């Protein structure tokens, strides 16, 4: 197979050597530069929905999501600035205001990526009014539960179910703020015939939206070994394809 061309560019002033087919996010991580992400998960396809990873590029006012943007020779990327920091806080504020995220009663308290991002970006208050929508909890599955109140619509569950498990139980229904994760054709999870009960979706969920039944407040911890497994699965799959 023809390997992509090698180029050099800069992230935050640091010289980076790269293949043309590596994203800015991958390269930043390889070089120890932190860019916050939420919908991105190594081993799954890129989505570009959360917009937390937006970066600045010298010479343009436009912002680019690091997870789906490929560098070009001589590009100068900046991953942190007052503007980006403010926008990242805004995105987190939007997410907290959109549904009902109450950490003190959440199974994932202390193990939540949304909570962690709020800590690390210093988002200490929500400026916009809370929308407080009335949302359901689907507890029809014997092993797991889905709490729409805590969902951030990152679609990691949709992608892991489709791309790794191959079941495609999950999908998205509705538009805009009414968009929801649904099992099969908008059925209760417990009645979804395609679900293999593998639990991959629960492992990749960044918040407490998908949880193991029986977990109480702050008890829902993810398996640390699952994520490496995910990228290995993906890598193996890609090699087979080639």
């Amino acid at each position, binding site marked *: 197979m023809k390997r992509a061309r090698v180029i050099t560019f800069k992230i935050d002033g640091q010289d980076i050597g790269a293949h043309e087919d590596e994203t800015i996010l991958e390269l930043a991580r390889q070089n120890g530069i932190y860019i916050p992400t939420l919908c991105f998960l190594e081993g799954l396809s890129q989505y570009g929905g959360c*917009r937390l990873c937006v970066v600045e590029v010298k010479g343009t006012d436009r912002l680019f999501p690091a997870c789906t943007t490929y560098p070009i020779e001589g590009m100068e990327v900046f991953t942190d600035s007052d503007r980006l920091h403010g926008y990242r806080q805004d995105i987190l504020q939007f997410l907290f205001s959109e549904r009902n995220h109450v950490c003190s009663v959440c199974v994932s308290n202390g193990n939540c990526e949304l909570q962690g991002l709020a800590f690390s970006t210093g988002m200490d208050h929500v400026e916009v009014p809370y929308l407080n929508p009335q949302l359901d909890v689907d507890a029809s599955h014997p092993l797991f539960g889905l709490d729409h109140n805590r969902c951030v619509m990152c679609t990691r569950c949709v992608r892991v179910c489709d791309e790794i498990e191959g079941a495609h139980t999950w999908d998205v229904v509705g538009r*805009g703020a009414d968009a929801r994760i649904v099992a099969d054709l908008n059925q209760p999870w417990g009645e979804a015939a395609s679900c293999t009960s593998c639990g991959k979706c629960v492992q990749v969920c960044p918040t407490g939206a998908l949880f193991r039944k029986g977990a109480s407040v702050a008890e829902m911890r993810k398996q640390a070994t699952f994520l490496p497994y995910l990228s290995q699965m993906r890598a193996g799959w890609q090699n087979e394809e080639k």
Partner: protein
Amino acid sequence: MIDRFEKIKRKEREAAAGVDYTIGVCVAASCLSLQGDKVLDAFQEGIEGPKEEGSPPSRCRAKGVGCLGLCSRGPLVSVTKQQDQPADDQSRVLYQDVTVDDAPRILEAHEADKTVPDILCPTDTPFFERQIKIVLENSGKIDPTRIEEYIAADGYHALLEAVTEMTPNQVIDEIVRSGLRGRGGGGYPTGLKWTTVAKAQEEKVKYVICNADEGDPGAFMDRSVLESDPHRIIEGMTIAGYAVGASRGYIYVRGEYPLAIGRLKKAINQARRQNVLGNGICGTTFNFQIEIRLGAGAFVCGEETALIASIEGKRGQPRPRPPYPAELGLWHEPTLINNVETFANIAPIIRNGGDWFASYGTATSNGTKVFALAGSVAKNGLIEVPMGITLHEIVEELGGGTANGHQIKAVQTGGPSGGCIPASYFETPVDYESLKKLGSIMGSGGLITMDETSNMVDVARYFMEFCMAESCGKCVPCRVGTVHLHNLLDKIYNGKATHKDLALLERLCSFVSETSLCGLGQAAPNPIRSTLRFFREEYLDLLVDEPVHAISEEVAA
């Protein structure tokens, strides 16, 4: 092939020569909703129905035609005298607000070479005289359900010339020379887009897509073109297919346009039968198939990557660009995607040459633009004007000012992605750059006029409500931001907001437009930004220093 076209032309001429008057009844959606079809039936009944013994055969024939333009006075009926053919707009008689009962009167009058003065529509007004018709050249003249009339009006001649006498590169050169820019709103040079797709790897399968998912509030240009002259789109797409090396095309029409869909389907079948579509087009080795795909009501599917996902059978949501569809489009193949009006311009450009087209319009925006003139103006309808015409001319001269005696306050162009332009800027020429400078966009051609009775905060709120309902929900800034922006506007309009809320509104506007994934979110704050820029005092008038009972109300809720 050309012999066949000539034969069809001759037959059409003979049919027209058999009578003295040809009566054209508008059968596009607007006039149909006012019983235009019943009017047509009444004319046919009057011509072909039982007559008194010994009376001579009728000197008239009646047919359905496409949009006649002045939609607010429909149903419209045009009467063309035989020796006037080919008729231009000025030499025919037009009747407005025609009812079923008027049909016998019109017939009777014209049998005696007279007219019916009380329902006569004056055609010596700027609304008709200032228009230059390229896209709409056949609208209101030919029967959209008959390919023979399209061919008789020089239709498919451009395709024949392209596939038999020109190389694909020559076709593209002609488009580049015309300076045509995308009519869907972005204004990307069409020739450049065609070149990019043509240059994509030769061994690849390529696709041509016509974006007919017209969704801006108040816009109906594409619908009218599809209903009035469907063959024009088929011809434009087939020429595009030949130029870029594609053999399959898709027309993505919104499901809310059943009449347009029906006429397109009929037109595709007719075109296949005439060998101007399908395999071995015009006796050459060029093959091109067109399929229709229906949209299911999502506005965002007008965004090209979402449209492609929708054709593929996936959830219609956009993906980040680049890669652009020209490189990685439908089924991951290079794809040319243009708007209805862009394709409608192709055949005339090939027929008359790129330089001819470039002679219309301004230096950077060539040709004409079709606008759907809506709102407070006296004359609502479909107009085609040269680029560079001023807004004042469109609104005050063509549109005839307001119907209710109020002053025009602003026009809104570009739908929910555009902005409001105040009357003080009406001397601005209509071209891509000038409108952009004013914080609006050319858009697909919706032009909504508003008079003094409109409140601009309410206008912005309306458009934000639209964006909120139509956001796909993929990216956070658009999904949540449109809700917050709408709520803030609602708060301001209801007199409950403070200066702090206005500051938040302005900050969120730039946040949403800079971080959103696709054009819908990036442009969603435009109606707010442009109204804030030109009508800031209307926002300030509604602000209160302290929120009135805000706390107690929240508790109560």
